[in-house]
């Protein structure tokens, strides 16, 4: 039995049947990190020796009956923009290279309450700004399906670590596609929950009205299990929604008879790679075969959504990143005489080029003279986007699109052209603008063996609907039985 190939729900069964111990599992993952990390480069801060100690501790407490709970001893990886008490949280930036959070993010409290084992902090684009993880200050993560290609981004470390079996599952964050797009590129499942379902307390803010934390997993069942752990109201995040807890496991019925699926034709147009379209069409046929009704529809916002996203996200980022001034934490320049010098030189030396580009763009669209033309307009388009989705969800339960217009691209081919990099987000951003849930599920590979992802979008708080739709498809298609990353160096 290859332990690290198992999903979390399979690990749970083995633990329950006493076929495996918690220590066996953690050791297997630590061995796999040692085997693959040199090629994949997914971790900023791996936690291996301590993880084994933790595992032994937790095993002892489970044996003595002190700890109960079906997730005790399950390892996990965490994106490096989630605050972890006592462990570095760098946001893949020189600015926070040595930052150790004095407190835990709310989701870390929840994960620790389950006695899961943190295997480390995972690479990402600096401050989650990017679609390839190439904008990390520390390293470029590689896609385990082809080491010359990017894993996607910004949660590229999380997706690559799950795909290469270096962690059984991971936490990501998604502002414009940063969970779904890397999941698509790496052939894993990624869920961006409804805005407000998961507390953002302790997530280093990029664009506060768009950011959401979510799971990146090997399969849909694991996504439901991890969502059960991290969701829920939190007094520390005023935008988190106070609603009754749902058991997302119960949503996985394996039946989509009568489910109404809309295909927004704007997301199947010219910009979408033909091989991506072909696999999506096969998935659509599968849904029809399973008894869902599928119909073309229109979302007349696709043209505006990406521009609107970059205006709003950069505006919010320019404000959120104002806190990095070299005074209380973070990088401080050596080169200063006055307080103003500290601010300006620390920021100029501490932030990377893409972060500065977005701060400048955000400051520009908020500045006097341009506010009405860009920011105000974008906020109005945001209302339009919501209305268009509302209309669509009157008719359909789920909207189905590609997750990304292409498969993973080669390292270095887009990093010098920001606009081209932004186009990688074209299918995912409107979901964040409207605050909806979206899941990416693998639906095949292209002629070069690179994974293709399908995105299912649901109405607000309809996670159960999209999880069931994704699960039912997954049970039929069985992606993980057919395809596995080979760590190719082409």
């Amino acid at each position: 039995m290859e332990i690290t190939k198992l999903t979390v729900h399979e690990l749970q069964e083995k633990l329950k049947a006493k076929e495996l111990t918690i220590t066996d599992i953690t050791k297997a993952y630590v061995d796999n990190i040692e085997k693959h990390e040199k090629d994949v480069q997914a971790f900023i801060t791996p936690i291996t020796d301590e993880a084994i100690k933790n595992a032994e501790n937790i095993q002892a407490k489970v044996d003595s009956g002190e700890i109960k709970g079906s997730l005790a001893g399950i390892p996990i990886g965490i994106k490096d923009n989630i605050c972890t008490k006592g462990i570095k949280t760098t946001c893949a930036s020189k600015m926070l290279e040595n930052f150790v959070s004095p407190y835990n993010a709310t989701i870390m409290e929840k994960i620790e309450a389950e006695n899961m084992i943190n295997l480390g902090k995972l690479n990402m684009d600096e401050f989650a700004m990017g679609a390839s993880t190439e904008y990390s200050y520390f390293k470029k993560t590689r896609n385990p399906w082809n080491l010359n290609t990017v894993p996607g981004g910004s949660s590229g470390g999380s997706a690559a670590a799950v795909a290469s079996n270096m962690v059984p599952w991971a936490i990501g964050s998604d502002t414009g596609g940063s969970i779904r797009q890397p999941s698509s590129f790496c052939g894993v499942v990624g869920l961006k929950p409804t805005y407000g379902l998961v507390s953002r307390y302790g997530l280093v803010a990029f664009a506060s009205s768009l950011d959401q934390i979510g799971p990146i997993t090997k399969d849909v069942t694991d996504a439901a299990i991890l969502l059960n752990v991290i969701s829920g109201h939190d007094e520390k995040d005023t935008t988190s929604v106070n609603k009754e807890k749902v058991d997302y496991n119960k949503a996985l019925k394996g039946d989509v008879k009568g489910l109404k699926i809309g295909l927004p034709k704007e997301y199947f147009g010219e910009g979408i790679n033909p091989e991506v379209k072909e696999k999506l069409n096969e998935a659509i046929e599968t849904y029809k075969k399973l008894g869902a009704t599928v119909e073309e529809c229109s979302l007349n916002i696709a043209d505006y959504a990406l521009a609107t996203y970059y205006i709003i996200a950069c505006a919010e980022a320019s404000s959120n990143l104002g806190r990095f001034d070299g005074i209380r934490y973070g990088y401080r320049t050596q080169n200063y005489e006055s307080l103003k010098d500290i601010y300006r030189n620390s920021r100029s030396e501490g932030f990377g080029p893409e972060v500065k580009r977005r701060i400048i763009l955000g400051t520009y669209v908020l500045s006097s003279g341009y506010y009405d033309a860009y920011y105000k307009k974008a906020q109005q388009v945001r209302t339009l986007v919501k209305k268009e989705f509302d209309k669509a969800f009157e008719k359909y339960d789920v909207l189905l699109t590609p997750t990304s217009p292409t498969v993973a691209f080669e390292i270095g081919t887009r990093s010098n052209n920001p606009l081209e990099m932004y186009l990688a987000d074209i299918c995912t951003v409107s979901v964040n603008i409207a605050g909806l849930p979206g899941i990416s599920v693998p639906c095949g590979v292209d002629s070069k063996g690179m994974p293709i992802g399908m995105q299912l979008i649901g109405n607000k708080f309809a996670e159960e609907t999209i999880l069931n739709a994704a699960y039912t498809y997954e049970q039929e298609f069985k992606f993980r039985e057919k395809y596995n990353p080979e760590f190719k160096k082409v």
Partner: protein
Amino acid sequence: MQVSREELLHIAKLADLNLKEEEIDTYLIHLQDILNFANIVSKAPVENLSETIGENDSYNVFRKDEVKVFEDNEALLQNAPEKERNMFKIPKVIQ
């Protein structure tokens, strides 16, 4: 809209960023490209539509104003780039 060099420098100053000479030209090109692309929002049919402020409909979220003491000063101060005793150190501000 054409972005001038002076405008870019003004914006960078507002954002507390210095731009090196070689950065200015690249940022000008990139900013211009992105803004040309972003201009599409001016064509969106948004007459009479209100602006979305924040993602939820909730407006003010209140809670009791209770004092919670955070005692781990050491953990806070370990991130200080410069400190003296239990204080963050900065250059003299008042001349």
